[in-house]
């Protein structure tokens, strides 16, 4: 039995998970007192596991690599897993370092070092896949550092701007 706290879009759930000894891929899950059975058909290949059956209801779903979001039907949810046994809490997301979400070329920069920006304010334009993509501020704060120049090519995850 494994105790977890699962937070979905800011609502916490206390969850106990017990793998079945008899049937591989079967799990008994207790959520705030309610009992569910989860079956993972691809249990022998968990890397592929992109669908599960909960009490006879099949779902195709997708977790992000870091398990911070889940896609199901046509929605996407922020999730957080707190593992009491491992004693670890995954760090809160969203510091002020704005990294390149895709490789591309910085064509325009709308801000300067030291400038105050609002949440959602356009910071720069990144050109990729024949589109101009506006990158906006993740926080309200001041521009601490500009790590790129117009015309510069950036790789995936490369730091572009830091807000503090």
């Amino acid at each position, binding site marked *: 039995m494994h105790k977890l706290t699962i937070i979905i879009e800011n609502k916490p759930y206390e969850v106990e998970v017990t793998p079945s000894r008899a049937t591989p891929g079967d799990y008994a899950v207790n959520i705030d007192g309610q009992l569910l059975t989860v079956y993972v058909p691809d249990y022998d290949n*968990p890397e592929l596991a992109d669908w599960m059956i909960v009490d006879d209801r099949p779902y195709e779903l997708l*977790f992000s690599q870091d398990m911070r979001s889940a896609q199901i039907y046509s929605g996407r949810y922020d999730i957080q897993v707190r593992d009491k046994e491992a004693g670890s809490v995954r760090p809160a997301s*969203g510091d002020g370092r*704005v990294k390149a979400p895709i490789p591309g070329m910085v064509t325009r920069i709308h801000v300067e070092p030291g400038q105050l920006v609002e949440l959602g304010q356009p910071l720069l334009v990144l050109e990729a*896949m024949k589109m101009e*993509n506006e990158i906006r501020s993740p926080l309200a704060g001041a521009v601490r550092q500009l790590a790129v120049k117009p015309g510069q090519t950036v790789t995936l995850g490369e730091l572009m701007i830091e807000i503090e």
Partner: protein
Amino acid sequence: MFKKILIANRGEIATRIIRTCREMGILTVALYTSADRDSLHVRLADEVKLLQSPNRYGDADEVLAIAKATGAEAIHPGYGFLAEEAGFAERCAAEGIVFIGPPPSVIRAVRSKMEAMEAVKRAGYRVPLYADLPDVGADEAALQQVAKEVGFPLVVKSARGGRGRGARVVLRADRLLEAVRAARHEAELIYGDDHLYLERVIAPSHYLVVQVLADAHGNVVHLGEREGSLLRHNQKLIEESPSPSLNDTQRSALWTAAIDIARLFNFQNTGAVEFLVDSAGNFHFTEVKARIQIEHGVSEMIASIDIVREQIRIAAGEKLARTQEEIRLDGWAMQCRINAEDPWNDYLPSPGRLTRFRLPQGPDVRVDTYGYVGCAIPERFDPLLANLLVKGDDRAMCVSRLRRALMEFRIVGVQTNLALHKQIVQDPAFIAGNYDTRFMEHFQFDVSANTSREACRDLVAMTAVAYLLRRRVDAPVIPERIKSGWHRSARRLPS
């Protein structure tokens, strides 16, 4: 008939063209860049050539050199790149290679949007109010004067046009300068030509195109109209045929106009005659697209005609396979443009490798794509990944089939706009066929759509199990998800 055709394009349209060539017994030469080496068009062609030029698929010199070296008798340009390039079509002719498209003179005549509108206006059809824009260097006062004559709201357009890029709506005079600058930049970037013009906005309106085929023997037919009013940033998301916004009188008037206009330009091969229909039901000619369009499959489904096959036959000098009387438009068809982009992150492009790619199947469902499981989606090109097409006896059946197909389409490895499409096809106005070009302005993408309280609780259970599964396999340390600062709106779950 040709023995070998070179396809000067990539992705789904190159794949689409190869299919028809193979059915016609014609050998194909495909081009690719190293970023595109996974694309299905490279696997399916008979012969493939790696492009060396930094201009890639748009490099006329290299494309012609390859055509000569491989002995290709004709070149199919697809859309974009070398399509609608009169100069390229002329060079093909000079080299004795058939350009699969209209003759250079026709391309020139329709490529200049303003001259085309002028000609159509003279022939007695309505066109939007428009004005040529002063040169780049012109001062703002002159610019504002032109705009005032056209009137606001207006749209800043590229004179070269095409694919809705480089167009910007301006509501007020004080936004004009900025819009013109941005449009020039984008037009230069996309078309290599920053010539712009202003056009009075017709809104609300319907964006309708009539698909035409014309051979070299004077025969011109249409394959009905498509409604393309469901646009996001000037890109058609969903297109359907027939249009739900026309009555039968309007429809047949539109068809007649399209054939007239095609004849006016001595049009040949395939193209789309495009119109805006205002709220009074008047249609205004806007332009002729002198090439195959991304949405051609919609017309193929209702007319049961392979448009690529007709293109090749026309280019080879053959007559149209069917007269207008022999063409029967039957049923209702729709297409969703599936892009590799992230609807939760301002539609940022999403390159990556497809780890799951399960196409919807069943009666009257078709997917045109260059992707497959294991294929890398490059970052360099258009995010268009797949065209999903469905047909039904009537519009209701078509919509329910589309909804089913979207539910079944499974793509993992890149983010796509599938979720957006799934939500649009459940919108009451869309279901009623009651929408115009403003639809997407008002449409709210719901980040947590369709999730009942039960599904939400089930998601909690699955998250817990997924977490344990991942721990169990002791996966290597998972890199932190890239945290960029793009906009993210989140809605709380039902609780």
